[in-house]
């Protein structure tokens, strides 16, 4: 798994947030556009592109996008 590719795919799930403001250090659950709908879109993106599963626990435990990447890539 490529970290920057993950970041790009993650950022693509947002409609109103400028992708250049989303970095690996972004605390994604604190983003204004974050919602339960976006959570489903992230789960779908990871299933589709990486054939891996993001659980509620992953979203709970990870604060930054990089932390979420580490959890996903270790599966």
């Amino acid at each position, binding site marked *: 798994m490529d970290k920057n590719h993950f970041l790009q795919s993650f950022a693509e799930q947002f409609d*109103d947030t400028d992708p250049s403001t989303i970095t690996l250090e972004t605390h994604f659950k604190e983003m204004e556009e974050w919602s*339960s709908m976006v959570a489903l879109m992230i789960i779908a993106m990871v299933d589709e592109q990486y054939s891996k599963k993001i659980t509620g626990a992953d*979203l*709970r435990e990870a604060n930054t996008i990089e932390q979420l990447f580490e959890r996903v890539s270790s599966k």
Partner: protein
Amino acid sequence: MPEYSNAHVAAIAYHLPSTELTNEQLNADFPEWSVDKIMNKVGISVRRVVAENEFTSDLAVAAAQNLFQQYNLNPADIDFLLLCTQSPDYFLPTTACLVHERLHLTPSSGAIDINQGCSGFVYGLSLAKGLIASGDATNVLLITAETYSRFLHPKDKGNRSIFGDASAAVLVTSNPIGGRINKVVLGTDGKGAKNLIVKNGAMRFPKSGDQALHEDEDGNLFNDNCLYMNGSEIFNFTIESVPDLVREILERNHLQQEEIDLFVFHQANRFMLEYLRKKIKIPAEKFLIYMEHCGNTVSSTIPIAMKHALQEKKIKAGSKVMIVGFGVGYSWGGTILQF
């Protein structure tokens, strides 16, 4: 035993309560929330909700009356009533008995509730088929009816935006008309019970005095008197189980995916349906999405979508229609209807 049953879905009708809950109304209730943008993904413009004095039995009776009227059916011919609901009028008696009375069905007909959610229509067909195969019934009236709006916390914007109240009625008959019910595949995983639940108000936990809406550690809103849904877990369950379920339905019915003319999945939300469609590689023109006018109506979504497909001639003589239900329980099921 014959390879396939002689049970057929011969008639479909539905009913929506008159009170609307529009995206504009939700926007007024939750001004901080971009309702239009989110609902664009979820695929719902309006949902209907019951009035204060309107209950599951009322919705059930209205759907059955629509069915009798639209197909010129005689209620006296019904010899079994199956009512699928998780929001009954009372603990007891069975809501089916109240509906039986109001529809003036014959005293010699059976009437019973089954409690199942988003897989409930498929379960109902399976049970109706069994009643017909046993010879105990020849014309089963299957009704699905829910008033989930009563389970929702007024401040729970997510669930209020998804669920709508509705009822549907179908005639399952031994007469060879309509869609023959082929092999039904069913499944259960009670480990998922906690992820979609109304915890309080039955025997284990009485309703509490707590009126507030709380947030759990996954960011899902809850009040144990109301419906709780862990959206992430439900989504994961769905994308894991439904592709396998579709494969199993095809195998059990000795069919290839290309031979199916129309796929009618439980209308949970458009985003999830579109994702499942792509994952299972179903062409868009063979995949029905019909929920914009009523939302997720639980066990009624499949018959409501099928009714519109029949009216729009997307289902015609010769059509093989796969129906798939999945959700609360966890519970899932599917079959092929051969028209």
